[in-house]
């Protein structure tokens, strides 16, 4: 049983660590702010949550696990809110990506006025 838990948490740690590194690599490699948001999304979701799950498996059914659960829940809810706030602030400051394949933002603005 102990071995099984160790293997499970090893799995979550390595996968989470891998996603963290790939996400951070994306923050450096991707060409503009708008694509980098998605790399940050990787860090905030799978990266952080899998690491937390790995830690939860390490501590078993204790108060520590409950705290980790709270941290996980908070990152799960506040993470995307912060990401959206950054994207929204950049958008309303007139920051726009180059080379859009499709752009509905004009239609969106019209729909809001109507």
């Amino acid at each position, binding site marked *: 049983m102990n071995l099984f838990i160790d293997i499970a948490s090893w799995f979550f740690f390595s996968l989470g660590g891998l996603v963290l590194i790939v996400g951070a690599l994306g923050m450096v490699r991707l060409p503009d702010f708008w694509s980098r948001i998605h790399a940050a999304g990787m860090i905030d979701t799978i990266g952080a949550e899998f690491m937390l799950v790995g830690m939860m498996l390490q501590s078993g059914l204790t108060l520590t696990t409950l705290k980790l659960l709270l941290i996980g829940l908070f990152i799960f809810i506040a993470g995307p809110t912060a990401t959206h706030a950054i994207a929204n*602030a950049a958008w*309303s*400051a*007139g*920051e726009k990506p180059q080379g859009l394949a499709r752009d509905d933002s004009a239609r969106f603005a019209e729909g809001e006025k109507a």
Partner: protein
Amino acid sequence: MMIAVDLILFAFLILTAIAIARLRNLFAVAMLSGLFSLLAAGLFVALDAVDVAFTEAAVGGGVSTIFMLGALALMPREEKRPVHGALLPLVLCLVTGAALVYGTIDMPAFGSPDAPVQRHVGPEYLARALPETGVPNVVTAVLASYRGYDTLGETTVIFVAAISVLMILGISLGSGRQKGGE
């Protein structure tokens, strides 16, 4: 293992400090100093100074970044080029740093059980805090019970300072400057 963590965090800290010194865009400097505080707080955790890390996270990472941005609204975006050379300040910093490092040589090793701080009144407080105050955390017991009036005065000072800063920034920003952005 913890030594490696300390060293890596410290290397990041130095890297951030160099970047802050070299950047001229003040918004970037404000953001990076927030990052610097996060790193410093992580370092405090690694050094087992949990309560200091708490304070650093709250004050350094949160409040002071926002106050710095508030001050930035009253200032130009770019830092001015210094009119004098960097040599004299550099020498001054190096000398001060060397003196401080020289001073630490006399200090007992980090976490050493023979250090005066561990042998003087420390054990007394550790033994008596729980039965005397009923507070499970010794740091809290000392802060809020043994020196409760001192802490009350301290928090009052910080509260008044925060209110005054907010008032200064709030009043001068009230002159109808609307939306901005980079």
